[in-house]
C-alpha cells in the first residue's frame, strides 16, 4: 500500500504531468467561470488531446480541469448570482447576499477553502475506502436516492419566509416546469405542445441563468446602481477571514464532505442535488438557521465542501465497477480505455498506483486551485462594483452566450429571457426563486426513484430497504430540528418572562 502511495505520487512528479495539471487547472477555472459550461464540457474538449502522453499526465490534465471547474462555478454564483452550472446554484443563496454586504472577498475565500478541504477529505476517503467501495455501492439503490431527494425538499421551508403558501406555489411551479418533456417513466411527451424543442424539456442551467442572473440584471438596469455601490457599502472583508471561516467551521466541512462522498457514490443523483442537500444540512444543523439566505458564510462553505468531496466519491463507481457515475466519469472511462487501463476490481490490485495517482491529483489540483483562487480573489471582488450601465450588457451577453452554449439551441436563449422575466416578477412579489429551482431539480428525481422503488419492491419498499428507512428517520429528525429548537427557545423565553 505504502509503495503504491509513493509510486502514485512519483508518477505525478514528472515535468509533463505537472505542466498538464497546471494547464488543466487554469483551463478548468476559465471554463467553470463561463455560465452554462462545466466539468463535462471541460473534459470532453480536452479528451482528443490526451492520446500518446504519460498516463499520469493525461489524468492530471482531465481531473485537474474538472476539479478547477468546481470553484470556477462558485465565483459567478457568489459575485453576480450567475450559477456557472447546476451545481453552483446553492452558492447563490448566501454567496450573493455576502457580496452585496461588501463581503465578496470573504465569500470567495471561504468557498475556495471549503472546496479545498472537501476535496482533500474526499481524496483521503477514496484512498482509505477502496476495499469497502463495492459493498457500499451495492447496498444503495433507488429507495435511498429517493430519501436523498426528500431531504433536499426540506429546504423549501427555509426559503418560504413570510408565506409558506407562496413558497409552496413557487416549488409547485418548478415541479410543473420540470415535467415538460418526455416522461421518464412512460416515455410519453408531457406539456410539449407538439414542439421538438420542448421534447427535451427545459434545461436546468438555462432556467437558472434566467431566474437568477437575467432577473438580477433587470433589477440593476431598473435601479441603475451597481451590485455593490461602494459609496454605500465598502468591502469590509478580507481573504484571510474567508480562509479562517473554512477552518473555524471544520465540523461543518467534515459533515458536508461526507455528504458529498455519499452522493458521489450514488450514480445518477447528480451534483446539483449535492449542493442543495449540503445547504439543507448546513441550515438544519445550524443554531441560527434564520441567518441562512441572508449572507451566512456556512451557506457558502457547505456546498463547496460537498462538491469538492463529491469528486472522490464520483470516482468510486468508475474505479470499482468500470461504471461511470456521471457524464464526466464516462469521459474519464474513455480516457482509461485509451490508456489501456480496464477499471473494475483489478484496480485494487493491478493498478493501485494509478488509483493513488488520482488521489494525489485531487489533492494537488485542489491546492493549486485554492492558491490561484485566493491570489485572484481581491481582483475578482472588485467586479460587482462596476457601474450598472457597464455590468448589465457584459453579464447579459455572457448569460445569453452561456444559455446557448449549454445545449447549442438558439431557443434556449429565449428560454433564459422568459425565465429572467419570471424571476424578476417572482422576486418582486416575494415568491422564492430558490424554491422554484428546488422543485425543478427534485421533481424528476423523486418521480423516477419512487416509480422504480414501487415497481421493484412494492408499496412497502421502506420495510424491505432498512437503509432507506434509516435515512427517512434522519430526514424527519433533521427537518424537525429547527422547529424543536425554536419551540425550546420560545419555551425558555416564556419561562424567563414568567420568572
Amino acid at each position: 500500500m505504502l509503495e503504491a502511495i509513493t509510486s502514485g505520487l512519483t508518477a505525478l512528479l514528472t515535468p509533463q504531468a505537472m505542466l498538464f495539471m497546471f494547464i488543466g487547472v487554469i483551463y478548468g477555472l476559465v471554463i467553470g467561470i463561463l455560465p452554462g459550461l462545466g466539468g463535462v464540457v471541460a473534459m470532453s474538449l480536452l479528451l482528443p488531446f490526451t492520446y500518446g502522453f504519460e498516463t499520469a499526465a493525461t489524468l492530471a490534465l482531465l481531473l485537474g480541469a474538472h476539479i478547477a471547474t468546481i470553484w470556477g462555478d462558485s465565483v459567478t454564483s457568489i459575485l453576480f448570482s450567475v450559477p456557472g452550472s447546476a451545481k453552483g446554484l446553492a452558492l447563490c443563496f448566501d454567496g450573493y447576499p455576502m457580496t452585496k454586504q461588501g463581503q465578496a472577498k470573504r465569500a470567495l475565500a471561504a468557498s475556495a477553502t471549503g472546496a479545498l478541504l472537501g476535496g482533500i477529505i474526499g481524496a483521503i476517503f477514496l484512498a482509505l475506502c477502496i476495499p469497502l467501495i463495492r459493498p457500499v455501492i451495492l447496498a444503495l439503490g433507488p429507495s435511498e436516492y429517493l430519501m436523498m431527494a426528500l431531504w433536499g425538499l426540506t429546504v423549501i421551508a427555509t426559503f418560504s419566509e413570510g408565506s409558506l403558501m407562496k413558497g409552496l406555489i413557487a416549488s409547485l411551479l418548478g415541479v410543473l416546469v420540470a415535467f415538460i418533456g418526455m416522461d421518464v417513466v412512460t416515455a410519453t411527451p408531457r406539456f410539449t405542445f407538439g414542439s421538438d424543442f420542448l421534447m427535451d424539456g427545459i434545461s436546468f442551467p438555462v432556467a437558472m441563468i434566467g431566474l437568477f442572473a437575467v432577473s438580477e440584471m433587470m433589477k440593476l438596469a431598473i435601479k441603475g446602481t451597481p451590485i455593490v455601490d461602494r459609496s454605500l457599502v465598502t468591502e469590509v472583508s478580507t481573504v484571510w477571514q474567508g480562509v479562517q471561516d473554512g477552518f473555524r467551521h471544520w465540523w461543518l466541512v467534515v459533515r458536508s464532505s461526507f455528504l458529498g462522498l455519499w452522493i458521489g457514490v450514488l450514480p445518477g443523483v447528480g451534483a446539483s442535488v449535492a449542493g442543495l442537500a449540503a445547504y439543507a444540512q448546513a441550515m438544519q444543523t445550524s443554531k441560527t438557521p434564520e441567518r441562512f439566505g441572508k449572507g451566512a458564510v456556512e451557506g457558502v462553505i457547505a456546498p463547496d465542501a460537498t462538491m469538492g468531496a463529491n469528486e472522490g466519491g464520483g470516482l468510486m463507481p468508475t474505479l470499482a465497477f468500470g461504471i461511470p457515475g456521471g457524464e464526466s466519469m464516462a469521459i474519464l472511462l474513455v480516457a482509461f480505455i485509451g490508456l489501456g487501463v480496464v477499471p473494475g476490481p483489478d484496480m485494487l490490485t493491478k493498478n493501485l498506483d494509478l488509483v493513488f495517482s488520482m488521489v494525489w491529483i485531487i489533492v494537488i489540483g485542489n491546492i493549486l486551485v485554492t492558491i490561484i483562487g485566493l491570489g485572484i480573489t481581491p481582483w475578482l471582488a472588485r467586479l460587482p462594483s462596476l457601474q450598472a450601465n457597464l455590468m448589465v450588457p457584459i453579464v447579459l451577453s455572457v448569460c445569453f452566450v452561456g444559455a446557448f452554449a449549454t445545449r447549442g439551441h438558439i431557443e434556449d436563449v429565449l428560454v433564459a429571457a422568459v425565465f429572467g422575466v419570471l424571476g424578476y416578477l417572482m422576486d418582486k412579489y416575494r415568491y422564492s426563486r430558490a424554491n422554484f429551482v428546488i422543485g425543478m431539480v427534485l421533481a424528476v428525481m423523486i418521480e423516477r426513484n419512487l416509480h422504480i422503488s414501487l415497481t421493484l419492491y412494492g408499496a412497502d419498499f421502506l420495510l424491505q430497504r432498512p437503509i432507506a428507512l434509516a435515512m427517512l428517520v434522519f430526514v424527519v429528525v433533521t427537518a424537525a430540528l429547527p422547529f424543536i429548537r425554536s419551540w425550546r427557545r420560545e419555551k425558555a423565553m416564556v419561562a424567563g418572562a414568567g420568572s
Partner: protein
Amino acid sequence: MKMMRRKIVLAGMLAPALLSVSGRVAAQASSFYKDKVININVAGGASGGHTRYARLIQPYLQKHTGAREVRITLMPGGGGLKAANYIWRAKPDGLNIFFGNVSTLILAPLAGSPGATFDPTKFVYLGRATSEPRVLCVGGKSAIKSIQDVQKLGRPFLYPSQGTDEDFYTMAVLADALGFKVKAVTGYEGNADTALAVIKGDGDGHITGWSESMAPIKSGDKHPILMVNSLRSPDYPRIPLVSEVAPANKQATVRAMATILETHRSYIGPPGMDPQAVAAFRAAVTAALKDPGLLEETIKGNRPVVHMEGAKQQVLIEEITKASASLSPILKAAVKEIQ
C-alpha cells in the same frame, strides 16, 4: 453487315462523348464540396460516443471532401429524434448532414413514437462509420446462466431500462421471439444506472453495446448470455447469437432486428439530397474511413471503424424496413405496456 458497321461507327462516335460526360460528373462530384462549409449535426451530447466519433473523423472528412470547414453541431435529445427531425426538414443541398444512431431512426417510427416525424427510407444514407454488437447480460451472481434459463424462468424477466431506446425495443423483440415474459422497469437514468441494478440483482439483465459491458464482463460483475448480431464474437465465441436460438417462424423477425442494430453510427442526408453531393460525400466517407491517419488514431483510441458504403446501406435500409413490418406490433405492444 452494313447495319452492324453503322452501329459500331455510331458507338465509336458516342463513346468519347459519354466518357467525357461521365468524367465531368465524377469531377463535379469530387469537387462539389470544395470551399464549402458542411454542417454535421450530431445526435448526441458533448461526452457521447457519437460526438467522439464525429470529431475523430471530422478532419479526415474535411481532407477528402475539400470543404473549407466541416462544422460539428451537437443536437442531442429525444434519443436522436431531434437531429433526425431537423435533417428531415433541412435543405437538400448536401451541406447539412446527420451523424448518429440510425437504428433508433428505424425503430422509433415502427414503434409509433410521437417524436418521429419522418420516414426512414426516404433519407439518403451516406455511409456507416462503425457498428458494435449488442449483448444481453445478466448479473455475475445471478442464478440465470444462459438464455435457456431465461426461457424457463417461470416469472417475467426484470429488465431495468432508461426508456424507449433501441435496447428496450430489442428486449421486446427477444421476448417475443424466444417466448418469455419481460417486465420493463423504466425510469433509470442511463446505462450506468441499469448496469448497477443488474449487478446488484435489482434487475435480471440488460442490453448494451459490447464496449459498454466489456469491463464488467471481464471482472465477472456481468455475465453475457446472448448477442444480437449476425456474427459471433471472436473474444467470446461461446455466446450464442439470437438467430441461433430463435425458432424458425421467428427467424425473419430476429434477423431484421439484428440488421437494424448493425446500421448503428452513420451519416445520413435529407430526402432528395443533390445527387452530386451524395456521390461526393459517400466517396469522401469511404476515403476518410480508409485513411491511414484515421486508422492509426482509431487503434490508439480503441475506437474501431466498421465501414459500410452508403449505396449498400441505402439498399439494405429499404430491405430492412420492408422486412420489419412484423416488428411494429411487437414494439407498439412493449411501449403500451409501460404507459
